[in-house]
């Protein structure tokens, strides 16, 4: 038995996480991070979510705390998100939240309070191998796997992290919550970025914080101008929606975004590449050697591609779609995360 602090978001996964740890005989305390004070659809920060978490904790008979990490969230997640867009990158704020909030600020506070470990409701698995090293493995439910957004966990963090629902399917998690009568059993999964509302979207959020500039859309195939996009800061390489209509019903992809001009270049040929540079790389264990064969995943639920690590990026076996700068690139060995970083 150990003392575990569960990060309770108010969702079904962390609710069941709490119940499972209690059933396993751990001493469990719950805590909800208050991260965002602005508008939110639901995400992980609204008052009603804190209330859900608190009620589940009460139902399970454990202590529940609220930690106000709003200033850290602004500094490490929101502001970098805004700046990344301003600089033409496509950030992944959930990854930064995991890196700086859940598995840094929250984990440090838990250790300070004398807890042995933290637990979250992520669908991924921490496995201890024969040599006593910790591995981060894909969740048992392939469709819900969240190992991608946890790639920054290192041995120190993995040694202090429990992810009990990672071994279950989402359907089993919901069934367990229902069997326990937890109020979160049928609560919808959180979607997208918690501080962006579905009504306003990214445009409204960013438009309040940085100037959004319209940009002409030019067809690389014909040289023809296809109109304009309202905000070049919101356009991502590889994107194929919201680019206006050339009148010929052909699907077009963004192949280049020139922030300085500003100009968006599109083509009917999807942009591909054979090498992807990866920066700010972290490893779950030792760094891998140059020439190591890896599986590469470039979006939360994208299919992994086979490639070779060249020390500063990956060389794909087959041409791969271009990955927007700022997106997380995660390297796997089978189902185990080796590490990851940001597309250069």
């Amino acid at each position, binding site marked *: 038995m150990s003392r575990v602090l569960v990060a309770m978001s108010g969702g079904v996964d962390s609710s069941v996480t709490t119940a499972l740890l209690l059933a396993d005989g751990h001493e469990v305390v719950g805590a909800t991070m*208050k991260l965002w*004070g602005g508008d939110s659809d639901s995400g992980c920060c609204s*008052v009603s979510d*804190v209330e859900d978490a608190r009620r589940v904790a009460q139902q399970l008979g454990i202590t529940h705390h609220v*930690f*106000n990490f709003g200033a850290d969230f602004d500094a490490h997640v929101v502001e970098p998100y805004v700046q990344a867009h301003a600089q033409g990158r496509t950030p992944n704020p959930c990854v930064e939240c995991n890196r700086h909030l859940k598995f840094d600020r929250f984990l440090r506070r838990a250790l300070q*309070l004398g807890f042995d470990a933290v637990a979250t409701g992520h669908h991924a698995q921490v496995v201890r191998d024969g040599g006593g090293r910790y591995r981060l493995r894909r969740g048992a439910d392939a469709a819900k796997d969240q190992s991608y957004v946890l790639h920054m966990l290192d041995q120190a963090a993995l040694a202090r992290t429990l992810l009990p629902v990672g071994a279950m399917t989402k359907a089993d998690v919901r069934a367990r919550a229902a069997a326990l009568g937890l109020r979160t059993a049928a609560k919808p999964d959180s979607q997208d970025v918690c501080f962006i509302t579905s009504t306003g979207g990214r445009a409204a959020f960013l438009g309040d914080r940085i100037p959004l500039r319209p940009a002409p859309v030019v067809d690389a195939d014909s040289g023809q101008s296809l109109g304009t996009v309202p905000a070049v800061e919101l356009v991502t390489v590889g994107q194929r929606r919201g680019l206006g209509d050339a009148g010929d019903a052909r699907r077009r992809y963004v192949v280049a975004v020139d922030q300085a001009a500003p100009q968006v270049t599109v083509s009917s040929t999807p942009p591909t590449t054979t090498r992807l540079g990866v920066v700010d790389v972290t490893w779950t264990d030792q760094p891998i050697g140059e020439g190591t064969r890896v599986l590469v995943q470039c979006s939360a639920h994208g299919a992994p591609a086979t490639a070779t690590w060249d020390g500063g990026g990956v060389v794909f076996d087959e041409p791969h779609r271009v990955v927007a700068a700022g997106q997380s690139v995660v390297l796997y060995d089978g189902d185990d995360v080796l590490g990851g970083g940001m597309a250069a």
Partner: protein
Amino acid sequence: MTAYLDNAATTPLRPEALDAMLPFLTEHFGNPSGSHAVSRRAKQALEDAREVVAAALGCTPSEVVFTGGGTEADNLAVFGVDGTVACTDTEHHAVLHSVQARGGRVVPMADIAEVDADLVSVMLVNNETGVINDLPRVRGLLHTDAVAAFPWVDVAAAAARADMISISAHKFGGPKGVGALAVRSHVKLKPLLQGGGQEADRRSGTHNVAGIVGMAAAVAATVAERAAAVERVGRLRDRLADGLLAAVPGAVETGDRATKVAGNCHLRFPGVESETLLVLLDEAGVCASAGSACASGALEPSHVLTAMGIPRGEALSSVRLSLGYATTDADVDLALKAVPDAVARLRS
């Protein structure tokens, strides 16, 4: 054991308040606005209570408006008068947010006397730091939030200059959800709530008779015991504050103790986050608080400490141990052991 040291948040119900309330939650259930015997019993209790509260606030019974608590009393004062409004930057949110909602001015305490507004609101005692304020002379009407003052200060005397005075029952051993606004007869007050015209058209809604009776019992007990409580609790507070200042390296006391109410011990422990400290104190059985909690229950940096010029980081290292009429030596003993232990652990 538990040491309850959050009496500025709320106090335990006084036995005399509970005893006074019980008949009005059972046999004397009448609506005081009716005309029959059952109503008359409730009406009599209501008016008896009004006299007790009026005497304690230094006003006439007809100047007492019963409300659903301190927040409503503050809102009624700020929204109930025509013209411009202003307050200090250390007010409770019930005043601060009301003044802001009316587009009023918020100024430092030092400047409040110079503000030209039709209503100025200045709290008698700060709820976080316990600092007692001298009420200024102002051109227009003066409202004072005496919620944090009432347990310790003779409000009738200290707020004699005020045109309106707010109190809240649960801060001095009364029940939650009931308070009063004293409104001197020359003040033209508009109601917040439209309805049956109770409280001389100043606060519609059927009276919370049991709550009002309980508040009056707590008022009577508080006034009768106040001088003795200030002395007894003041000694406990001094032992607590002096003990912690001696035991915790770097600890700083907020405010000049000579200007504070007896029940307030507000300390800062640089390098320690209050949120973390409160969790450890909770585990050790010490109930304390820091700043004010927002809707989610998360701690917010205190606007009071910020207004006092205390840097944000230091404001987030504060803890308020507030004593009350029921605080004992044993409570202080537990805190004197638990707080230094917790701070040492967090600094290690």
